[in-house]
């Protein structure tokens, strides 16, 4: 009998390792290359002197030069203070905002939600100029008024210090943190909160003792992400820190690879980067620990419940005020300043004379200065990066959440790793790879290299969101497809994808925005052929063409509001059975 059954079974037998296992293996290998290759380059770079492609013996000279210099440690301290401060500022705004928008009956939630997205479109430089106009110790309007009102000798507030830098950078990170945390709060079972209220615990206490601890893994993830991003960014350090001689690590790496005189020193950049890398890996380790610890109370949504909103009662208006204060800093004031500056022939504070000079000249001539290339390149980035990232993320999450492949945990950690890899380092590593091995990797100086850098960076972000989206889709919906006899690709395409489409689209839009505004990597990988809008903005700022940049900013914000608004509207129906 057994012979007969064997013969019958033979044609359709699947032998381990299954197709899924092979696929997961391939995915892991690809990701390993994407994350590992730039990392290896940084290590190689730090061990060589000279130029990419020059070869030469391995040496520890760079480390000796960098770490024997006492100034390096001052810079490290600055970097840590700046990054920690930034994270604190971001979380102070982001966590309460997430709770207010996702869980309560705060008025005008929809509008606030949209405005958060709009804020991202204002380039950080211009936002920073707004803060200079307001808070510069000499010319800042706030300080001038304070001087007139209270007769102060000294400026009331100053921007040019580490708290000032952390404040500006922190505020600009809030939307990222917000959207990353939103998913965690959305999937939290409201019964957990309600149980606290029925036990007589106040709303604030519930928020602090229930919501925050339960979402701790998510907050930890965001914190690591923010910290590593804060270590890597250099817009605010360049505009606010640099003038006051406050150097941070990213600024050193940037000046090492883009010195004002002489030749780039990739070796020093690598040696500075090594410490970032170590910090990143330490953070990644702690993150994984926290997440594993948190898994025992990870809350997964039940069947078809709709979270009830918490009535804020008399706290409604103070809560709204909190949101408005944030939005003023994030959107209203910067946009107002943007419009003001864009109408002037040159940068100046409001005055009767300035009002007399208002014209639309900058808008008329902006495209003569910029040309079409940066717009085309930016459009390519804004489409290619989120698409590639989301495809990767969905596949990775599917393996991690849905299959029982033995190394799925490692795959998840691998996908998270770019979070811990500072963007500037990734970019410098890729640039080195592109220069040193241009025959095998001929993308240096093309828009593709920026797209690759962005995709690698945001796979971490993408997989965090697709993981939570995927968990929300009940496993049995997929199994029902398989039982129906549909193949794995059919199940993915016909069942999983339509179910997660709305969530994926939200992440897609978001990554598109992040890609649009990212400047650190785009600049480190930039040549004249792969200029994007964000690097044009940086160049204009460097040339002192601020009104032109402002005009560009106003045009982009208005354009993006139309596009994003339209897309969101079009997809809102998709979201009905999603959330």
């Amino acid at each position, binding site marked *: 009998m057994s012979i*007969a059954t064997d013969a019958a*079974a033979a044609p359709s037998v699947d*032998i381990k390792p299954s197709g899924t296992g092979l696929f997961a293996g391939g995915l892991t290998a690809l990701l390993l290359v994407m994350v590992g290759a730039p990392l290896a380059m940084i290590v190689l770079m730090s061990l060589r002197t000279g130029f990419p492609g020059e070869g030469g013996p391995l040496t520890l000279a760079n480390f000796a030069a960098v770490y024997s210099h006492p100034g390096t440690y001052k810079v490290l301290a600055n970097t840590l203070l700046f990054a920690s401060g930034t994270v604190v500022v971001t979380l102070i705004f982001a966590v309460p905002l997430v709770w207010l928008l996702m869980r309560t009956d705060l008025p005008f939630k929809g509008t606030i939600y949209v405005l958060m997205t709009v804020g991202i479109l204002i380039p950080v430089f211009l936002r920073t100029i707004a803060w200079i106009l307001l808070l510069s110790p000499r010319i800042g309007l706030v300080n001038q008024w304070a001087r007139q009102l209270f007769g102060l000798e000294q400026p009331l507030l100053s921007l040019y210090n580490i708290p000032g830098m952390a404040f500006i950078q922190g505020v600009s990170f809030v939307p990222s943190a917000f959207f990353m945390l939103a998913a965690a709060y959305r999937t939290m079972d409201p019964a957990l909160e309600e149980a606290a209220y029925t036990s007589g615990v106040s709303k604030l206490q519930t928020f602090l003792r229930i919501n925050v601890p339960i979402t701790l893994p998510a907050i930890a993830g965001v914190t690591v992400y923010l910290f590593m991003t804060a270590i890597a960014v250099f817009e605010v350090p360049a505009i606010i820190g640099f003038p006051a001689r406050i150097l941070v690590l990213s600024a050193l790496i940037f000046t090492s690879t883009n010195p004002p005189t002489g030749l780039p020193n990739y070796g020093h950049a690598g040696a500075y980067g090594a410490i970032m890398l170590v910090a990143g890996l330490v953070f990644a380790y702690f993150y994984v620990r926290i997440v594993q610890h948190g898994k025992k109370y990870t809350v997964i949504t039940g069947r078809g419940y709709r979270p009830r909103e918490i009535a804020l009662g008399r706290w409604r208006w103070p809560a709204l005020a909190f949101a408005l204060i944030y939005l003023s800093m994030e959107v209203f004031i910067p946009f107002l300043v943007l419009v003001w500056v864009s109408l002037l022939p040159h940068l100046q504070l409001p005055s009767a004379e300035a009002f007399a000079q208002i014209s639309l000249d900058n808008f008329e001539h902006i495209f003569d200065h910029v040309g079409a290339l940066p717009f085309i390149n930016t459009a390519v980035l804004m489409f290619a990066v989120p698409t590639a990232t989301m495809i990767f993320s969905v596949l990775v999450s599917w393996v991690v959440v849905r299959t029982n492949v033995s190394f799925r945990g490692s795959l998840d950690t691998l996908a998270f790793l770019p979070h811990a890899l500072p963007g500037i380092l990734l970019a410098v590593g890729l640039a080195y790879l592109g220069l040193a091995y241009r025959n095998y990797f001929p993308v240096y100086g093309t828009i593709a290299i920026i797209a690759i850098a962005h995709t690698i960076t945001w796979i971490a972000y993408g997989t965090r969101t697709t993981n939570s989206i995927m968990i929300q889709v009940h496993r049995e919906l997929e*199994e*029902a497809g398989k*039982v129906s006899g549909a193949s794995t690709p059919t199940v993915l395409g016909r069942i999983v994808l339509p179910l997660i489409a709305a969530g994926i689209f939200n992440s897609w839009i978001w990554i598109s925005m992040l890609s649009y505004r990212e400047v650190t990597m785009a600049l480190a990988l930039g040549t004249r052929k792969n200029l994007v809008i964000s690097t044009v903005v940086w160049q204009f700022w460097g040339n002192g063409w601020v009104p032109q940049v402002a005009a560009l900013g106003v045009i982009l914000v208005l354009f993006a509001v139309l596009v994003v608004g339209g897309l969101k509207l079009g997809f809102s129906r998709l979201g009905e*059975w999603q959330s």
Partner: protein
Amino acid sequence: MIKIRGLKKWFDTRRGRVDALRGIDLAIAEKEFFVLLGPSGCGKTTTLRCVAGLERPDAGELEIAGRIVNSPERRIYVATEKRDIGMVFQSYAIWPHMNVFQNVAFPLIRGRKRFGREVVAEKVKRALHLVHLDGLEDRPATDLSGGQQQRVAMARAVVTEPKILLMDEPLSNLDARLREQMRVELKKITRAVGVTTLYVTHDQAEALSLGDRVCVMHGGEVLQTAAPDEVYARPANLFVAEFVGEMNFIKGKVASGRIECPLGVLSLPVPAASDAVTLAIRPEHVRISASDGASGALVGTIASKNYLGDAALLEIEINGVTLLAKLAGDTDITVGQKTSVILPPERWRVFPS
């Protein structure tokens, strides 16, 4: 139709290996309605999912319709989608982005065997008729009630006329009245289709009423496989006795071939090599008569009475032991009354403690 031999599955956790299945052996005949019954965590769902191919056992062999579908030792695994099965999930797993027709038609359009448009329409129509959902084809899945979702899930599972139908606690999310109604219908549908059914539940009433045979599981092992009346009347061990139906349990000691307990010394067959035993008797087998002093009868006092309409449950105290008795609802025995209690020896079950 389904043969399971030595099925084992374990999970490696930080605290070491956890066994989910410790070697399951089952043989399910064609067109049989076979129920896996047990408390949560007993391994019944894991067994079902192994049959479906949604889980892979670590050892053992699975055979469906004479074809080995899974055997880790021989490196054979037939993927779920290639097994000729239908399945109803606990959550129903109705795809929310499709309407009723699309849900039911999916296995016919994308599944093992694909059919033309007209055949699909015809088959879907028949399946929906079977579950009494005629005319609801265009209803979006999100607009269905729980009972309707259950029916759609059922229709989707049988639409391909599979050899095997798997059901994972399909009624547990329905309210009590609907559940009983669906139970009857479920049996009718499976009969009508003539499919071999493997059904998982933790509800013993459901198991007894639906199953041609019932398999009681606990801790990853099979405790007893038998017809429902056999399981009820002759539970194989103490756990089955506790889990299936109500029972009175009394501790006893074996002394020279007889059992001593608070109710006296009983001459009953004693299980081999045990000195401490548990005696068990079902409440409906405890006989009570108002007249005291019947010869050989025990005397007890009624401690409480719980009137259920068709029946009454009485608690009787005898020699410091409380026994539960189930009588017809119209009994006139009242609380505090002294009664004689008869415990027929043939009704006693004796288990080693």
